[in-house]
């Protein structure tokens, strides 16, 4: 694909250093996206930070793929000096998603990982304060997992006719 050409250098470097870790390399909507194995993700991001100047963590979030029985943790990094971006994805098993914390590289990952824990139940090993950040503390579910219906099932005053159900 032509779009990749601008990103070629970083792909070459990644392939050289972490060939065994790379699962796929794509460029949807011109955004370089590398799917990786989960084991060495922090090491790879540390490498991108130190050697390739991807020193800004744009975002970090979760995605649930119920068909694949996977929870994806997605990182977006930005190289501010060259204005280059990269998205990294790792697939974790749905029943026990666990990955080392990124706070060792980016302190800003603290709240983003708390949010991802809050909504998807991803366990970030070594996180300094892995508690819910947006939802009420008493909540027992991870609401953005697709096994839960969007509507509030605890309502007693529902009139299904009025909601078109």
């Amino acid at each position: 694909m032509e779009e990749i050409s601008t990103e070629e250098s970083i792909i070459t470097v990644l392939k050289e250093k972490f060939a065994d870790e790379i699962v796929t390399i794509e460029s949807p909507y011109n955004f370089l996206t590398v799917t990786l194995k989960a084991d060495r993700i922090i090491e790879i991001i540390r490498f991108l930070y130190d050697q390739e100047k991807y020193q800004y963590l744009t975002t970090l979030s979760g995605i649930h793929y119920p068909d694949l029985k996977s929870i994806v943790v997605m990182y977006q990094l930005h190289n501010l000096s060259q204005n280059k971006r990269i998205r990294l994805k790792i697939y974790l098993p749905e029943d026990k998603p666990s990955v080392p914390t990124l706070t060792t590289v980016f302190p800003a990952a603290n709240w983003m990982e708390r949010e991802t824990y809050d909504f998807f139940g991803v366990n970030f090993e070594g996180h300094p304060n892995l508690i819910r950040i947006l939802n009420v503390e008493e909540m027992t579910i991870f609401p953005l997992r697709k096994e839960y219906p969007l509507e509030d099932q605890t309502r007693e005053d529902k009139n299904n006719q009025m909601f078109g159900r």
Partner: protein
Amino acid sequence: METVSLNNVKVSESPEGIEGAGFFATSLEKAVGLARKNSIWPLPFATSCCGIEFMATMGSHYDLARFGSERLSFSPRQADLLMVMGTIAKKMGPILRQVYEQMAEPRWVLSVGACASSGGIFDTYSVLQGIDRIIPVDVYVPGCPPRPEQIIDGILNIQKLVESESLRRRDSAEYKAMLNKYGIE
């Protein structure tokens, strides 16, 4: 400069009573009701678009001051009326309740808009499905969001309640039982 004479100042109608040359007699309850009704201090608890409509209501065009409520109280301890305007997330619930508990009696609650009254379109896990699940509400204003006219209508309905409320209502067993139902006191 034109001087303001009493003739062109609109004065509230006097309550029912016995009037004669040089005297006017009515019940204390009615006099207090009249005074309270026309000097309600609202506490705005605005969380979303209904709050924007409230800003218009307080502004010069709709001018809530015409009804004696120009003085907003941002301290719950000095407020008479809690105006809840907007979506209340479940996480916000305990805060709203604490604000209500900090208000001194007599206190009234106006629930403005669909979200505060019923959760509105947010039939979802994170949104409180109506503030009357945690605090008692006196008047509900429908709308998403309601226009300033509707908010004023709600205030006028609160005024009717304030005017006609018995001075002993807040000491009654029924009132205490009602609060207890919400787990207050």
